[in-house]
């Protein structure tokens, strides 16, 4: 009996020390982790909007997310919006940022973080190189593109996406096959089970169309309430639609 109590006490002390060590490290590391996340987010924003766009943080109220981004060109015309969204993958939440035009055409998609199965789900971030090993030993390596993310560019976020399996992956498709996929609003899956692919697709489908509609309603209402004189950016945007 005394033995059980003694062992329990020792295990308790060890666990308590472990918890202390982790919480100590966490309190030191978490502000830095937040900082790294912000930095990553800024880089992703640069990537999902056309170069040269002025990116503004925008505060939203429901149904919009508390924070999203608006990109304008030099004249203040709205080029598009970016939303952070996440989908449930196989073993993690796949967080991504999507840039869309007001009409729904996707300007760019960037995966921020994921912890999927290495070699399968992690291919959402895959960068494919087409050069041969022997060439790259002598020549400089050419930077490939993250094809899974690139294939979303130009698709319409307001329409449902099609997920294609058993077809050639996007990065091996010639331009006309890519156009055919784009016409169907289709993406090619990274794995046969399509869990990670659908996670990304669902993340976009379930949020972006609603957000865009909400923004449309809002800017329409602004027009009515404030008149044409006050908010000229909203005016420009509606005229363009």
């Amino acid at each position, binding site marked *: 009996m005394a033995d059980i109590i003694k*062992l329990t006490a020792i295990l308790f002390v060890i666990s308590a020390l472990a918890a202390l060590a982790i919480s100590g490290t966490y309190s030191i590391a978490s502000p830095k982790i937040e900082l790294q996340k912000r930095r990553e987010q800024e880089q992703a924003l640069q990537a999902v909007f056309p170069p040269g766009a002025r990116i503004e943080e925008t505060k939203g109220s429901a149904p919009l997310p508390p924070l999203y981004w608006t990109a304008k060109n030099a004249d203040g015309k709205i080029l598009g919006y970016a939303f952070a969204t996440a989908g449930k993958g196989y073993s993690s939440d796949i967080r991504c940022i999507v840039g869309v035009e007001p009409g729904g055409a996707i300007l760019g998609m960037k995966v921020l973080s994921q912890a999927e199965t290495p070699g399968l789900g992690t291919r959402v971030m895959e960068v494919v190189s087409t050069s041969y090993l022997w060439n790259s030993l002598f020549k400089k390596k050419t930077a490939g593109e993250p094809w899974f993310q690139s294939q979303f560019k130009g698709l319409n976020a307001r329409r449902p996406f099609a997920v294609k399996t058993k077809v050639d992956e996007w990065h091996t498709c010639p331009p006309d096959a890519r156009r055919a996929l784009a016409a169907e609003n289709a993406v090619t899956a990274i794995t046969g089970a399509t869990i990670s692919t659908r996670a990304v697709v669902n993340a976009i489908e379930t949020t972006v169309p609603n957000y865009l509609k909400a923004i449309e309603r809002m800017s329409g209402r602004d027009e009515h309430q404030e008149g044409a004189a006050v908010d000229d950016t909203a005016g420009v945007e509606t005229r363009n639609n």
Partner: protein
Amino acid sequence: MILQELKRGIIDENPIFVLVLGLCPSLATSTSVENAIGMGIAATLVLTCSNVIISMVRGVIPGKIRIPCFIVIIATFVTIVDLLMKAYSPALNRSLGIFVPLIVVNCIILGRAEAYASKNSVRASLVDGIVMGLGFTVALFILASIREVLSANKFLGLLVIPGFEPMPVFGLAPGGFFAIALVMGVVAMLRERRKKA
């Protein structure tokens, strides 16, 4: 002495091919050479440090509750490494981050803690961690080379043989078993032959 230890970790007591430890992460991360190297490095680091820590506390922990204690210590250590890596080295986190959670459940770490570090000096445990980690890395590298070339005609993401039609099954779990079985068979054959000689 060093060579002997290296030989022990890489050949005589290779964690995957001889001790048959850590097959689950091996299966998952030997699909490409890049993943294999990443997992190998991450596991070697954690294994070495956990061996040292376990060896340091081996006199304090009562034998009856050593396993839960080891698990708590290893999991704590891995979590701390994970947090620090995320905070201070985003580049390292991008390449090794996905492997760190896999390491907590890697039985090589617990296996070496139980079989070696809990019975040997800190210095010997440090060496054991390094050579076992290297053995794991080498084994993963061999498996991944076979699997990546056969499944995608690629090595480190670069194409290898012009016109070779790849066999995707080698990139999936069954192919992982094929590759492990083949290499394990060859290793066992060589060991048998050496025993006779």
